[in-house]
Each structure stands twice: as structure tokens, then as C-alpha cells.
């Protein structure tokens, strides 16, 4: 440490510290933009949720919408389904993402091509991908039913989107298909960032591939896994287009998640007030979930560090 240098350093540090104004100046445009496009609509949603707004005007009705929603017999089922949808879909995305990233990280011929081929579901508009899946799930002419009939596993046409269970799991598969490539690419990037020395040291010590995967790869990419699962959970919870294009929430509500339910109430039935109440529930439940996730994560991290 040369004294001149540290002198400059402390000057610089002071400057950085006194830069609150400049820092906020740079953030201000984004902050303002988001306050207008996201903040105001959120506040308006809160206000609307206490009204009976519809096509014919609106008046304040207090907590009536909330009481009606909490007493609704169907609503708990929709909430449960949404969390089940999120949990199932995100778990599958993470598992497939890790497997995919591992496969694309192995030095094999054609690796560069595979890395490009994995990306289309992420890059292509969701609506277009869903059109493809609509045909895949077609009971008479789709490839799955067709192949299964040829093999004799199915003895007749089977409409995947026409029955409650098969429609739900078909929608999960499509959602996983849309979400997996991005997760795979992020995990792949994280794996490539892991220092090669760690693996070589472990190899010299005689660690098996499986051991190296468990003890080096997974811990090293853990921060990315954690971030991606939270982001993915939020996106999956709010996933609209996939379900809407495949089933519009049907058959008989089997694929109606909270976001679909909100859209139907507000846009299709013009019940803006009651719809806003439902929209608010989505936000509240997601916020609680994210907070819990981060709290549990902090606890786990602390315990990890104590060891």
C-alpha cells in the first residue's frame, strides 16, 4: 500500500459515498417509468377492488368483494391448483434444466449444434409454440395419439385436452417446454463458470463423476439455481398465454389458475371491481410466497455458513 495511492483511494471513496444524488439521478428514469406503468395501475387495482366497477359505472362497496371471494366455494380449489401448477412445473423445469445443461456441457461432437437447437422454445413466441402443441395433443391427428395408436397402447383416439386430468398435465408439459430452455442456458453458463481446477483436484483425489457432480457442480451453481427457481416460480404462477391458448382454463375449470380466473372475471365478464379483487389476491399470495422463500433461504444460508 503506497500512501499516495491510498490518499487517492480515500478521495475516490468519499466521492462514491457522497454520490447519492448522482446515483438517484441515474435511477430516476426507470423508477419513474415503472411507477407510471406498474405502480399506478397497482394502486388503481387496489381502489377498484373496493368497488363494483363494471361497464355501467362504479360505486364504493367496502370489503364486499373480498367477503364474496373468500366465501366462494370454487376459489380455494383455484388457489390450490395454482400452487400445485407452480410447484410441479418449476420442479420439472429445474430438473430438466440441470440435466439438459449437464448434457450440453459434456465434450461431445455436435455440442455447438445441440446448444443452438435447445433454444427455439424460449426464442419463439409462446403463442406460436402453443399452436404446435395444440396439434400435438390432438386426439385423432396428433403425433402422440397417432404413435400410441400405432403401437397399440391406445385403441382409439384420445383428446388430451378434453379431460380434466390429461388437460392439466398437458398444460404442465407445455409450460415446462417453454421454460426449460432458458433455465438450461443459465445453468449451462453457470457450469462453465465453475473453475476447472476444482474438478481436476477432485479427480486426482479419486472422486467419482457422481461425487464431483454432487459436491462441486451443484454447490457451485447453487446461487443461480436459487435465483432461477424464484424467478421461474413467479413467471409460472403468472403464466397466462399457454393455458389460455391450449384450453382457456377448461375443461370445466380443470386448468383455471388464478391468473386465468382473474382474466375471465375482469375481461370476459366485465366485472372490473370483482376482477381487481382477484388480481390483488394474486399479488398478495405471490408476495407472501416470495418473502417466505427468501426468509427460508436466508435461514438455510446462515446454517450453511455456521458449519
Amino acid at each position, binding site marked *: 500500500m503506497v500512501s499516495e495511492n491510498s490518499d487517492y483511494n480515500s478521495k475516490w471513496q468519499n466521492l462514491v459515498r457522497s*454520490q447519492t444524488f448522482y446515483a438517484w439521478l441515474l435511477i430516476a428514469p*426507470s423508477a419513474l417509468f415503472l411507477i407510471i406503468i406498474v405502480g399506478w*395501475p397497482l394502486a388503481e387495482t387496489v381502489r377498484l377492488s373496493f368497488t363494483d366497477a363494471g361497464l355501467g359505472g362504479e360505486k364504493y362497496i367496502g370489503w364486499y368483494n373480498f367477503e364474496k371471494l373468500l366465501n366462494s366455494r370454487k376459489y380455494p380449489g383455484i388457489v390450490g391448483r395454482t400452487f400445485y401448477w407452480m410447484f410441479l412445473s418449476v420442479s420439472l423445469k429445474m430438473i430438466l434444466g440441470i440435466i439438459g445443461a449437464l448434457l450440453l456441457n459434456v465434450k461431445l461432437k455436435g455440442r455447438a449444434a445441440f446448444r443452438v437447437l435447445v433454444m427455439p422454445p424460449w426464442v419463439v413466441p409462446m403463442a406460436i409454440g402453443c399452436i*404446435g402443441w395444440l*396439434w400435438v395433443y390432438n386426439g385423432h*391427428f396428433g*403425433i402422440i395419439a397417432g404413435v400410441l395408436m400405432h403401437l397399440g397402447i391406445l385403441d382409439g383416439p384420445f383428446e388430451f385436452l378434453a379431460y380434466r386430468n390429461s388437460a392439466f398435465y398437458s398444460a404442465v408439459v407445455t409450460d415446462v417446454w417453454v421454460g426449460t430452455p432458458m433455465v438450461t*442456458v443459465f445453468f449451462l453458463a453457470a457450469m462453465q*463458470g465453475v473453475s476447472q481446477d476444482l474438478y481436476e483436484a477432485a479427480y486426482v483425489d479419486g472422486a467419482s463423476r457422481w461425487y464431483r457432480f454432487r459436491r462441486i457442480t451443484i454447490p457451485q451453481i447453487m446461487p443461480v439455481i436459487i435465483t432461477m427457481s424464484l424467478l421461474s416460480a413467479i413467471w409460472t404462477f403468472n403464466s397466462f398465454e399457454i393455458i389460455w391458448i391450449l384450453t382457456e382454463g377448461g375443461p370445466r375449470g380443470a386448468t383455471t389458475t388464478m391468473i386465468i380466473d382473474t382474466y375471465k372475471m375482469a375481461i370476459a365478464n366485465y366485472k372490473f371491481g370483482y376482477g381487481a379483487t382477484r388480481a390483488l389476491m394474486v399479488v398478495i399470495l405471490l408476495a407472501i410466497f*416470495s418473502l417466505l422463500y427468501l426468509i427460508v433461504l436466508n435461514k438455510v444460508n446462515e446454517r450453511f455458513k455456521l458449519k
Partner: protein
Amino acid sequence: MERFTIFQKILLYLAIAVFMTFILLPFFEMFMASLRPLQHLFRSPYQFWSDDMSFQAYTDIWDTVPLLGRYIFNSVFLATVTTFLCMSFVIPAAYSFARFKFRGKKISLGLFLGVNMFAGAVLLIPLYKLLRSFGFLNTYAAMFVPGAAFLVPTGIWLLKAYLEKIPIELEESAWIDGASRMYILKRVVLPLAVPGLIVVAVATFIGAYAQQFLFAITFNQKREFMPLPAGIFEFIGYQSVIWNQMMAASLVGIIPVLIIFLFLQKYLVEGLTKGAVKE
């Protein structure tokens, strides 16, 4: 390190084949459906291959939906404008979060990331009112303004992580040489951040391109401004759906972006590896 045996290699290729089949299955199915003549599309029992397959649908699509070319252009155009708008907000904010210590930093960053929780679908009605009062309804702005807003938080998060990796010493020496703050941001930081900027821009472009459906069907009624994912549903008529042409148009429609992406994908994985992804 040990090599894979032939047997292990075969297993690995098999696993990759299964994975790729899952990823590419709908595209393959779309291609097959686009080749079948409409009256033979609905034919039982299921036939994998038939003699009457042709590329006829690929010439018919332009007559059935005359605005198809416009929709394809709109999609790319909207995604490009959204990306530029989004980046112009993201760059200064990400730089600020990456470099400065200031009061309210943690809270404001948390609030930004919290925006991720509000999907457009939740806020549709107030958004509609807002866009109407700006006079944006039924214009391109009705789609790219909210589109860009919802992509800003992730952009800031990605770029911040990348900028933190750029050594601060370079900025220090520029400062000591008497450069202004704006000059440092423009001439020192941005050139060094180019790989990071590419990653964030590509990720934003993908987000902007892949998710144009909801805002388009809700905030825009003018056909000449429709992006492809909304316009493609014109193949669904009152009486029947022209499935084979719909599939052909979908595949044709995504080709321009797939080509752009083919050139950019290298930077994406490289850039993410170099730091944007790490904490």
C-alpha cells in the same frame, strides 16, 4: 481427466436425443401438419407419411391472410423498439446500482425486482385506462410501452451483475485525469460493458418477442399494427380453421428471428458465463 467409454458416449447421445425430441417435437409436428392438404389433414387412421404432402400451404398463406408479411414485420419491429426503450432505462440504473453506495439502495433494488411479481395480466384494466389517457390505444406504443416496463427489472438485474465485474480502477484513473461522470459512463464503462450489453439486449429482445400476445389482443384492435402471435389467429375463421396454413405461417413467421438469433446466440452463452449470471 478420464474419458468416456464408447458405451457411455452412446448413452449420452441417447439422452441428448430424448431431450432434443422433447424440445423440437412441436416444431416437427407443425412442419408435418403444414405439408398435408387441408382435406387430408383430418384423416383417420393416423398416417405418419402420405403421398399427397406438398408445400402448397406455403404459397397459399399470403393470399389467405394478406397482412401476414406485415404481422411478421410488426413482431420484429415491436421487439426491436421495446429492446431499445428498455435498454435506455436499464443502462443508467444498472450502472448506478453496480457502482454507488447510497441511501435506499437495497430497498429500491428490491422494489425493482418486486415488479417481476406483477404480470401484465393482473393489471390489464388499469393499464387499459392508462394507455387510453395517453392516447396510446391502437398504436404500436400500446404494446411496446408496457412491454418495455415489465422487462426493465430483469434487465437491471442482469446488467448490474455484469457491470460489477468491471474493475473500478479504470474509472478511478479516468476520474483522477479529470473526466466528468457522464464522460466516464459513456467512454470508459460502456465500451467495456459491450459483451454484457449484448447479453442483456438479446435476453430483452427474446422476452419482448416471445411474449407479444396479451397486450396485442387487449390494447390494439388495428390489424395493421398486430404482431404475428396475435395475427396468426386470423387463420381461425368463423366456419373452420385452416390448420395447415396456420402451421406454415407460424414456421415462416419465426424464421427471421431464428436467423438473427443464430448469429447472436454465441454471445449469449459466452456473456452469461463471463459474469452476468453469477451473484
